[in-house]
């Protein structure tokens, strides 16, 4: 299957303003990140809070400007597009934002919130509303909610409005940033099923960002693990979950809460210490300051990107010399 979307060496830093607006330094939010999304597939992105997942999503959406790198949609770099060509691509890539409270217009009714982007694209009012109703129903919001205003909805109800709004344009790619985290498990299952159906029937491709590692495992074909702006491990979901290699990935999976009462996982994480500041990321491997397996080499060069098995890579010196595994860079 072909790649519908590719990120190539994407980087982004934010300036931090100090006294009187002088720039005091920069936050390296996304650093040299590459990924590919196959058509009709799901790429899951997981990683520490603040590691740059939402920033990466916003860069792909062109909501913020990239410092470096390319975003190729069907082989064409969309970062250079302007005018109507850009508008065309924009329609094809939709995002469900992490915070449903700020992404919904409080002055519009629920149905108009969903129909809005269709109107913007010239769809007649009634037809747009009909489609909006269809998608509201699909995410489990009954018709009678349609005329209500966002302020009278619960958190999970609002999140479903945001999902309906992304789906209503019938995009080819949806970037879902913590899109199901506020839903109860039964509604969540319903929405996940809907995504799966759309994948099959309308060849939807998904970038699925979530802290719920079980949900990511269930949804994803490929998984990318990020830490402090960088990709530390990447590969087929089955591989990453059954055979995690990077010490950060291993730590992350150890901390998944168990569903058993009395079996605490709170102390399972071998990573301790303070999160390093993204304003001043550690040299070499960015994880080394908290890595339980840190070596002297880690502070020096950037860790090599080692191929563990076909398509499965980990950026860690530990695997550099292991016999049949080959170093990529």
């Amino acid at each position, binding site marked *: 299957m072909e790649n519908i979307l590719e990120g190539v060496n994407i980087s982004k830093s934010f300036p*931090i303003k100090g006294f009187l607006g002088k720039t005091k330094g920069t936050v390296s939010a996304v650093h040299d990140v590459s990924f590919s999304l196959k058509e009709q597939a799901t790429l899951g992105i997981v990683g520490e809070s603040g590691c740059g997942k939402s920033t990466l999503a916003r860069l792909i959406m062109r909501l913020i400007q990239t410092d470096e790198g390319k975003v190729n949609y069907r082989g064409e770099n969309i970062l250079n597009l302007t005018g109507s060509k850009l508008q065309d691509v924009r329609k094809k890539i939709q995002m469900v934002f992490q915070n449903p409270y700020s992404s919904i217009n409080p002055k519009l009714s629920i149905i108009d919130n969903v129909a809005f982007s269709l109107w913007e694209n010239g769809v007649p009012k009634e037809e747009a509303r009909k489609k909006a109703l269809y998608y509201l129903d699909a995410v489990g919001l009954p018709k009678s909610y349609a005329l209500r205003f966002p302020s009278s909805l619960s958190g999970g109800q609002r999140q479903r409005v945001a999902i309906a709004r992304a789906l209503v344009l019938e995009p080819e790619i949806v970037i879902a940033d913590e899109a199901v985290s506020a839903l109860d498990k039964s509604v969540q299952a319903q929405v996940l099923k809907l995504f799966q159906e759309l994948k099959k029937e309308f060849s939807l491709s998904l970038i699925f960002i979530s802290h719920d590692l079980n949900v990511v495992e269930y949804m994803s074909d490929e998984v990318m693990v990020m830490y402090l702006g960088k990709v530390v491990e990447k590969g087929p979901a089955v591989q990453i979950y059954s055979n995690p290699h990077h010490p950060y990935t291993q730590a992350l999976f150890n901390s998944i809460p168990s569903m058993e009462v009395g079996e605490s996982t709170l102390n399972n994480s071998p990573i301790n210490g303070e999160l390093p500041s993204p304003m001043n990321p550690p040299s070499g491997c960015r994880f080394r300051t908290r890595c339980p397996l840190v070596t002297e080499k880690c502070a020096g060069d950037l860790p090599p990107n080692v191929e563990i098995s076909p398509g499965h890579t980990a950026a860690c010196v530990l695997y550099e010399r292991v016999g049949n595994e080959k170093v990529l860079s």
Partner: protein
Amino acid sequence: MSNVLELIDLVTQFSTKKGMVPAVRGVNLSVKRGKTLVILGESGSGKSVTLRSILRITPPGAKILGSILFNEEEILTKSNNEIQALRGNRIAMIFQDSLSAFDPLYKVGKQIEETIISHQKVTRKQAKELVIDLFRKVGIPSPEERVKVYPHEMSGGMRQRAVISMALACKPEVLLADEPTTALDVTIQAQILKLFKQIQTEFGMSIVLVTHDIGVAAEMADDIAVMYAGKIVEYGEAKQILFSPEHPYTKGLIAATPKKGQKGELITIPGQPPLITNMPKGCAFADRCSDAISSCHSENPELKEVKPKQHAACFLVRQKKEMITI
């Protein structure tokens, strides 16, 4: 005096164009001192409204009925000023929409400082130091720098940790936490939950925690209440509720949770919950329940003990039990 907080027949109604509609329809709950009560439940079932009702944070025109006892004292009849004095001080709340809790125009650290100063006798300098210390405790990297940033300059999870630090600032007796860790990765989540437990043992803080994460519930809960359509449908000791749920809704909810290594289709509960503007006469879950009998559609089941330390509001469970005892 083992219950720090007690809700008795709590009803919260909103005023809408269609008249008053109840979002919470008679909730009874007790929060034990120094313990954690987890509320699970359907989206839209009234979990947030229940928590907000305790601190009277409801939209204009809303009505709160019943009784809310804080340290055995009725607080529903207290003046708004008296409630204001409790809020953020003795009873703190972490809101579900906490990502928008901060004013975008002011620095995050400054806003927390103001909260501390308004409730405690401290100098500005002390308040400043307190905020930095709190930021460190909730795991915000380089806290000295981070107190000076604006809300939009923090990631979702970082803002969430700032909100948590604000709630803990005054060492409240009761912490009402509405999905406090959904925006956090599992390692930071673990850190925050540990911090909750630590403050709990140090100061005897009681916690009411709303979550959709069964894992978090298993980790934290002494007791669990399950809400559906404005009511508690099941309540009891955490272990009982998670491992031998009796109410068909609780069973469905737990079955729908993706497990580690989940393959195949996820289980969903067919149908949709009733609208709060149009509540059925009988059990609100009856239309979606595959085992419903005729009385389920005509009468409302009350929450009754079905096993030691476990209560369920379901005719079927009781019927089964009666059959066994006969």
